């Protein structure tokens, strides 16, 4: 994507009447505004008083800005549009581009509208967009600061070495062992020759004690080599695991530090893969492959030297065909890889289907679809069986043939050596030594053809690991961030926020919340209620405006200090695996048992906990005792209360409770919230009857604010919501407690 300066220069060349300093904004587009699929080379330009469009170097539009009421960003499927609304509210299309331009369009249109409103243009967005690789100019892929094309592999290996540095002596020692072992491998064939030539085939009667000595040294070499092998493995496993644990810690700590925004970009599964699989790929390489490469490499070189020293023609005969052998081997395996990849995909497909069926077994049974699912599964495993048979057949036939051809060179060798023996130039012992060396040399050669693939896999893992480690936390504490004891004033000062730069979820929110207030937040789903509280917890930073706590910008308070004083109960409660006690005491591990029980009592959890056979020691979470939604919620409330926060946030916290329990908790909470600021989101408006004030959000804007009575008198959105809920309860069969319970469950 060309940036503004380049485009500006181009426009100035095209049109001499425009001076560089007149151009406020310029951006490219690549699709014609009609329905054709043809690509084009277009430039859109914003001047102080006009908007211009150039298409293939010709100006096609000059639009005076006084005709424009608003520029509009619109997203199609696979393309984006710039539109504008004229003073009569008629909309017009300006230009279109493919999705590569999504962020540019979104950001530029925002700035163009700022210009229309008479505000200055912020060019900060360009920094975000200009995140391209300095080497090749390709943009980084989102969420990453690595260019996949220019990634410097050496620098990663160097950094890996830095991680491994503390354990370098372990690694040096094991590498040295590999050298020794490789050299040791050369000895047995030599001893074998001595045995054959000097004793078995000897013309004179050999001395028995020398014979025994040779045998014993063979035994000694074997034993020594095994012992060395064992200690080498132990050393390597030690080194490998230490490096990997160090890496794993780095990755894990980094992920914990990243903001929710960054983490949300990746799935939990992907993060788990980063922490565990990518790092164990590394362990595997260090403990297995690295050693092999060294050992085989040393063996290869050593054997080659011995062979050349002995008979260079013979050595050439052995070495020359090796590239062919390696190539054939590689070809074969890349083909097999393709075939087995297909099989692997089918296998993973069948396990997906199994997972689907078993986790949805209630649905399958309820709709009587067992037969259809059986058929579906059978079709897949039959497919899998056929592919598997085909692959194994192929492998079974081709592999022996290939091995035969790979071994064909040895026949020529035998012919050459045989001739020499017959001619008396070589002994049988020497022959056996040679064939031993040949098999030693062919081993690594065959194996080495797979090294490139292993290296690619390793690099993939390393790059992925460092990709996470290098990520800069986007919500970071300032250096001068302060510890602040929260009083409880929360000020939204013209706050705007969007999860991406295409749409603002919250627009120009301004409100001051006083210490000790209980604020209800209501509105339709998707208007930004949860977003609002996410900002208070500083899960995200505001895009515009400022969010202040006790008059201090939230970005100036250290995150630790902030979050340790905020308690949250979310709609979706999560209990960690552990006991109920552990879960309540999660945010305050040093709490006394009395405190935990008191918190549980306030949250209305004590009574149900005491009905469980193991009471507070009951295991919950995965594989533990299953609590109902309402019970989990109460545990979560207890957890938040024990934390004794200055600001309490309830996001639909009591939605899954029945009305009676909810009322109980409400009353208990009432005691507690007396001196702390509470923000509560609720769909069921009865939950908010204790609220001091109610914020009504509509389409991301603060539509109404006031007490229940004030808002009812206003007859606005809140009034409508209340009326709609009353009507609902009227339509229930009986207008009793039962009725509102139904309503409650319908709402939940």
């Amino acid at each position: 994507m060309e940036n503004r300066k380049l485009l500006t220069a181009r426009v100035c060349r095209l049109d001499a009447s425009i001076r560089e300093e007149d151009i406020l904004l310029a951006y490219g587009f690549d699709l014609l505004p009609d329905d054709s699929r043809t690509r084009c080379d277009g430039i859109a330009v914003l001047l102080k008083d006009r908007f211009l469009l150039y298409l293939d170097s010709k100006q096609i539009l000059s639009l005076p800005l006084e005709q424009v009421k608003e520029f509009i960003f619109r997203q199609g499927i696979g393309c984006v549009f710039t539109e504008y609304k004229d003073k009569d509210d008629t909309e017009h299309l300006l230009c279109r581009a493919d999705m590569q331009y999504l962020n540019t369009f979104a950001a530029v249109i925002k700035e163009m509208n700022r210009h229309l409103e008479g505000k200055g243009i912020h060019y900060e967005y360009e920094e975000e967009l200009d995140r391209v690789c300095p080497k090749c100019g390709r943009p980084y892929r989102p969420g990453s600061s690595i260019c996949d094309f220019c990634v410097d592999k050496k620098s990663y290996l160097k950094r890996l070495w830095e991680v491994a540095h503390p354990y370098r002596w372990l690694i040096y020692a094991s590498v040295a062992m590999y050298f020794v072992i490789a050299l040791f491998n050369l000895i047995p064939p030599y001893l074998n020759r001595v045995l054959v030539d000097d004793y078995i085939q000897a013309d004179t009667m050999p001395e028995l004690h020398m014979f025994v000595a040779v045998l014993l040294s063979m035994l000694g070499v074997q034993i020594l080599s095994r012992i060395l092998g064992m200690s080498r493995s132990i050393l390597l496993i030690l080194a490998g695991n230490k490096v990997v644990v160090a890496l794993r810690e780095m990755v894990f700590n980094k992920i914990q530090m990243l903001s929710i925004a960054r983490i949300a970009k990746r799935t939990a599964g992907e993060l788990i893969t980063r922490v565990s699989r990518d790092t164990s790929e590394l362990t595997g390489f260090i403990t297995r492959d690295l050693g092999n490469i060294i050992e085989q490499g040393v063996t290869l070189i050593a054997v080659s030297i011995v062979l050349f020293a002995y008979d260079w023609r013979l050595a050439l005969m052995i070495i020359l065909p090796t590239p062919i052998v390696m190539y054939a081997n590689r070809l074969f395996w890349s083909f097999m890889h393709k075939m087995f990849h297909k099989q692997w995909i089918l296998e993973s497909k069948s396990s997906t289907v199994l997972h689907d069926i078993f986790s949805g077994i209630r649905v399958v049974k309820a709709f009587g679809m067992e037969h259809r699912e059986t058929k579906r599964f059978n079709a897949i495993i039959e497919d899998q069986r056929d592919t598997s048979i085909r692959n194994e057949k192929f492998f079974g036939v081709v592999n022996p043939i290939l091995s035969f051809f790979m071994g064909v060179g040895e026949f020529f060798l035998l012919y050459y050596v045989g001739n020499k023996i017959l001619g008396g130039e070589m002994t049988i012992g020497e022959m056996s030594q040679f064939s031993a060396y040949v098999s030693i040399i062919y081993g690594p050669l065959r194996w080495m053809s797979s090294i490139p693939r292993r290296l690619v896999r390793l690099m993939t893992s390393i790059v992925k690991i460092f990709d996470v480690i290098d990520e800069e936390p986007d919500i970071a504490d300032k250096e001068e961030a302060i510890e602040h004891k929260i009083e409880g004033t929360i000020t939204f000062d013209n706050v705007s926020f969007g999860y991406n730069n295409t749409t603002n979820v919250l627009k120009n929110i301004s409100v001051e919340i006083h210490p000790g207030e209980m604020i209800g937040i209501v509105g339709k789903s998707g208007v930004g209620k949860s977003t609002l509280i996410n900002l208070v917890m500083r899960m995200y930073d505001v895009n515009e405006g400022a969010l202040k706590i006790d008059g201090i910008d939230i970005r100036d308070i250290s995150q630790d200090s902030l979050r340790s004083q905020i308690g949250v109960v979310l709609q979706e409660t999560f209990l960690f695996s552990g006991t109920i006690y552990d879960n309540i005491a999660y945010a305050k591990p040093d709490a006394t048992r009395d405190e935990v029980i008191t918190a549980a009592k306030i949250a209305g959890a004590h009574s149900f906990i005491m009905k469980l056979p193991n009471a507070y020691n009951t295991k919950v979470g995965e594989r533990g005792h299953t609590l109902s939604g309402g019970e989990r919620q109460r545990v979560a409330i207890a957890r938040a209360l024990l934390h004794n926060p200055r600001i309490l946030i309830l996001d639909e916290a009591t939605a899954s409770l029945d009305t009676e329990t909810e009322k109980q908790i409400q009353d208990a909470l009432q005691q507690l919230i007396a001196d702390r600021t509470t923000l509560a989101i609720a769909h069921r408006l009865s939950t908010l009857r204790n609220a001091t004030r109610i914020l009504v959000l509509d389409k991301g804007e603060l539509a109404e604010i006031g007490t229940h009575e004030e808002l009812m008198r206003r007859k606005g959105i809140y009034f409508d919501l209340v009326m709609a809920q009353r009507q609902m309860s009227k339509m229930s069969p009986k207008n009793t407690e039962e009725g509102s319970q139904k309503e409650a469950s319908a709402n939940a």
Partner: protein
Amino acid sequence: MDEKKNEIKKALNEIVAIVYITKDNAVFEKKSDFLTLTLTAPNEEGTIETKTYDRIYLHRAFPFDNPFSYISVLDKDNKEIGMISDLSVLKEEDAEAIRSELNRKYYTPVVKSIISMKDKFGFSYWKVMTDEGELSFTLHDTFHSLMKVDGGTRIFITDIDGNRYEIPDIEALDRKSFKKIELFL
């Protein structure tokens, strides 16, 4: 009691009734760059009413396997005005206008052949020949970026930016191209 029943019935109607837009009840007109719609249809109270929508938006209900049937027509607040069950129920020129509007919103180049494909670090880099010339794109998690329709012969590809590409018939691809994509099917 009857009143209550009526109320419920009315509420139900509001939720489930589909307003079909056909040549008999709708007039489309081009205004500036977009379409307006004048529709004669029952309103929420159930009485017949003629109403003009200044700008309409189209959204496909089955973008992959039925792109020119079941097209939802929305007003500026994203509320469904009605559905076009198939382009054939409209006047010829209206159908043409709708088709053009859809093609503009759903931008999907058609892949003719695959020039090269490189798989690296969990990303794949493609260079393809499409009906509008050579294009290159990048996929993350290739296997999941391909969507198979029509029993697996039609493929839709979504790249990392969100662009879409279509291969109308995978079996009609030349052998070399097919081999490059085969592994991900």
